[in-house]
């Protein structure tokens, strides 16, 4: 089965795509820290941040619809945080003066905007580079190799799991003329168990094939990463823009 839903736009040629993954990891995570450090209830700077993020989306040639759909997936969690966090501040112990100094709606709004900005940056990161290159970048930036190997394998097994899910879905649908007559939960429960067992079995075979080619627990690197002048220019430029917004807006 063919899959391209995880790294759908990572193969597109764009300015961002040509950057070293380490550049993007460093720049985008720095931007997240800068945005998150905005004072509570501050909304005005987000006009400038959204312009900066919009420019990055355009530079990455990522369709806006795709970015919005990814934001929609995380929306329930973000909305819950945006609504509950101000309330929790209000009801936790003695009321602090600074909580009242900002408007509650502005507080919720700033949480919402911070979360969506961070999310858009992560979507940009994962959509402008292949997952394995990002992992390489993280590894060379000091991520523990065990964590890197686990992430690489997890990424591989997502496809196995999805393969099995699609197969069992087809098997179920092909024998379901009309509406499902049995309890949907029962069927889905059995299906989930079967997907897990089959995936476990296939994961075992994948491991055997790795062993048969000399796997000893470490993933040898074949292609290295290259840091160019354009990466340095991007980091400095992006950092300056984000800092200026943070300080002066």
């Amino acid at each position: 089965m063919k899959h391209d839903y995880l790294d759908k736009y990572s193969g597109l040629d764009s300015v961002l795509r040509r950057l070293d993954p380490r550049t993007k990891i460093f720049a985008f995570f720095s931007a997240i820290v800068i945005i998150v450090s905005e004072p509570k209830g501050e909304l005005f700077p987000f006009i400038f941040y959204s312009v900066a993020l919009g420019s990055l989306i355009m530079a990455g040639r990522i369709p806006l619809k795709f970015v919005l759909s990814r934001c929609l997936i995380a929306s329930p969690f973000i909305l819950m945080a945006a609504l509950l966090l101000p309330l929790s501040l209000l009801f936790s112990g003695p009321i602090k003066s600074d909580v009242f100094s900002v408007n509650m709606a502005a507080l919720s709004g700033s949480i919402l905007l911070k979360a969506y900005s961070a999310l858009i940056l992560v979507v940009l990161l994962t959509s402008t580079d292949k997952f394995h290159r990002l992992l390489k970048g993280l590894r060379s930036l000091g991520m523990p190799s065990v964590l890197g190997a686990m992430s690489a394998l997890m990424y591989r097994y997502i496809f196995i799991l999805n393969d099995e899910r699609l197969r069992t879905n087809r098997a179920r649908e092909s024998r379901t003329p009309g509406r499902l007559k049995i309890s949907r939960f029962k069927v889905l429960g059995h299906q989930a168990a079967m997907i897990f067992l089959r995936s476990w079995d296939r994961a075992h075979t994948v491991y055997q094939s790795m062993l048969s080619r000399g796997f000893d627990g470490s993933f040898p690197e074949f292609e290295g990463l290259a840091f160019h002048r354009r990466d340095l220019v991007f980091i400095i430029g992006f950092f300056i823009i984000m800092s200026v917004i943070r300080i002066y807006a």
Partner: protein
Amino acid sequence: MPEPKNCPFSVVLENVTFAYGENSALKSVSLEVRKQERFGIIGPSGAGKSTLLLHLNGLLRGEGRVIIEGLELRKETLAEVRKRVGLVFQNPDDQLFNPTVEEDIAFGLLNMEINKEKIRIMIKDTLRLMNLEGFEGRTSHHLSFGERKRVALATVLAMQPDVIAFDEPFSNLDPATIKQFIKTIKNLDATVLIVSQQILPVLACCDRIAVMNEGTILKVGSPDEIMADKALLEKCRLDVSFYADIFKNHLS
């Protein structure tokens, strides 16, 4: 501690016995495969064929001896044996786990501690051999099944093993790809072991065939000798003579 390869047999199994829990899968199997021979192992489902294959490079370890190119499989020789025996799994998705075709082929070579520049050349040569030129940067889960099957073979071929063992190489392939695979297998510069339920392609590319059932080898012989033993084939649910009738009916 590399041992000499100048023995007449590529693969020798002596009384290999293995069980999954209480279910006996191999019962004292002995076998000798000559250098550069194309050797087929046929048998019904559950005969123990794939289990036997996994013993060749130590993925399963039972009782008895496994000797590859004169080197007995032991804990201390495991790494060397794995260099000498390449396994091609039935499902290519089980074999391809790296992000790109190039890195999948490089995986085994890097584990053999080969220089990266040499690896690059080996990858190019192997892809050319498998008619997969230009596939270096492709992601395996974006390829067709036939292409993935060829990439899976390429990952093993690149390691230049002395023995290549195939598990059901002809399953899920269209007739044209099977024909192409038979040609590829015939031209390989290695000893080849093929485990399959599909007799016709095995007949087409093997010098000798072993018939296996219920964990034992019942007969070893040339393709003609095996096909002549109809009783044995019927007993092992391997009789394919009805295909001849089908052909006859439709050609006349």
